[in-house]
């Protein structure tokens, strides 16, 4: 299985890179989806630049969500911060349930058009999976291991850094991965408030009834999400020690 899966992923990556570098080469494929001689490939901007801009926005938002969500997760699992758990949960849940489009609508009057409202929407939307996974990761550390760490003479901070966080890392990374994938797709709505991204291609397609454009924007976004998820998972397998918790 792994070999076939790796091959598929590499093929998908090659396809994505080829399309972004030489989109015109794929014009014959998309041409049947256009009407009245409309262009088959998005021609109002460079697809590669748009894809990279979207990826950049998503990564920046994920970085911010990770710092805040992991920080909150650590805070509420300490004895001194346990009282903040209900509050943190509420905040993070609101971030997830409040539709990103609505966040955009609220944010634009405050921070203007462009990247910034998109970053805010993605940041809020990405908190929940990271926060919940951090919580589970820190809470499921085996009690005997924690007892041993304290019994050996680790201070609370040493125990957190050298035992709890390393043991929670796989789950925290999974949360970040989940958050990234959700947001790669969600980021396309940023184009409604003039953030650079593939949403632009999809919107152009919708406005001009050009299915080829819609498909291009959607496919590139989808491929990026899948490859990002798998790529991160592969890196984790490569660099994290396998840990058997029993």
């Amino acid at each position: 299985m792994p070999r076939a899966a790796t091959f598929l992923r590499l093929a998908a990556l090659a396809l994505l890179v080829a399309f972004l570098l030489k989109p015109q080469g794929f014009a014959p494929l998309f041409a049947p989806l256009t009407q009245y001689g409309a262009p088959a490939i998005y021609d109002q901007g460079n697809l590669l630049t748009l894809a990279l801009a979207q990826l950049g926005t998503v990564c920046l938002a994920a970085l911010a969500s990770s710092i805040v969500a992991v920080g909150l997760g650590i805070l509420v699992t300490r004895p001194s911060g346990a009282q903040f758990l209900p509050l943190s949960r509420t905040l993070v849940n609101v971030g997830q349930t409040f539709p990103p489009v609505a966040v955009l609508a609220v944010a634009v009057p405050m921070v203007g058009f462009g990247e910034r409202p998109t970053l805010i929407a993605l940041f809020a939307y990405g908190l929940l999976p990271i926060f919940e996974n951090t919580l589970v990761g820190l809470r499921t550390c085996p009690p005997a291991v924690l007892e041993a760490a304290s019994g050996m003479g680790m201070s609370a901070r040493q125990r957190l850094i050298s035992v709890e966080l390393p043991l929670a890392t796989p789950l925290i990374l999974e949360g970040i991965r989940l958050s990234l994938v959700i947001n790669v797709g969600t980021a396309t709505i940023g184009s409604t408030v003039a953030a650079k991204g593939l949403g632009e291609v999809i919107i152009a397609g919708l406005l001009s009834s050009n299915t080829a454009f819609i498909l291009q924007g959607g496919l590139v976004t989808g491929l990026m999400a899948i490859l990002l998820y798998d790529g991160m998972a592969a890196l984790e397998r490569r660099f994290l020690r396998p840990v058997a918790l029993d």
Partner: protein
Amino acid sequence: MITVEKLTKCYGGATVVDDVSLTVERNSITAIVGTSGSGKSTLLRMINRLVEPTSGRVLLDGRDTRDEPAYLLRRRIGYVIQGNGLFPHRTVAENIATVPRLLGWEARRIEARVRELLEVFSLDPVTYSDALPHQLSGGQQQRVGVARALAAEPLVLLMDEPFGALDPIIRAKAQEDLLDIQRRFGMTVVLVTHDMDEAFRLGSQVAVMSGGRLLQYDRPAVLLTRPADPFVARMTGLADRAMRLLSLVTAGEAALPGPSDGPAVAPTASLREVLSDLLWSGADSARVVEADGSVRGRLTVAAILARGRP
């Protein structure tokens, strides 16, 4: 020397440890025995301040354990728990190096100490240094747990049901190893167990706890012959107390001068084992023979039986 003075721990209204005082001699093994809920683990955990006492105090060689921050105190006290609590993300060598690293030892000294301990616990350094805990057997994990507790050469070793998760054969071996290691390093061991056989086998002193109170604290033979409380008598076992008493005395200690043509026994064998030998072979005396072949004396059935009475 560990001095426990009027130690009490209450959780809410419940008193888990109730006014316990005892003194543990240096370089000895003391076993604390009790049923679950007797407060024995809480008592142990108050010695390294994983649990802070409600009242009373603990002195280590005359110094109040509250004179320094708890985490610094704990680096001077070895601690072994049931299930080991090995760090699953760290190799065997890294696990053992935990406390030396916290103490800021030089890398070379840590490496030498880890190697020494692996050899003491018959774990080949080449094979096991870089292994992760889940790659080891239960017995090996247990040994690494003890090695980790001893890494920084603590004068005191606290053990909370250290052999509870082992099967009987490995457990017997681990108990033997502990006796060897205590003789070798000479640290003071306080061990909590619910198993009276284990307590008698390891402890030179045994403390019996029930309902948070210390019922009796004495040598095993005294617990058997003069139990201070009916509960102590029940714990030590009324039915086979004579046999237990025999198991506390070695053939070397009990041997008397005189010839014997019975089976040869080692001076380290317990009288219980010698008696069993004699019953099995039908002889009425045994020769106590040293490792070098010289005869220390003999043990007659009558002499053995006399030792089984208070």
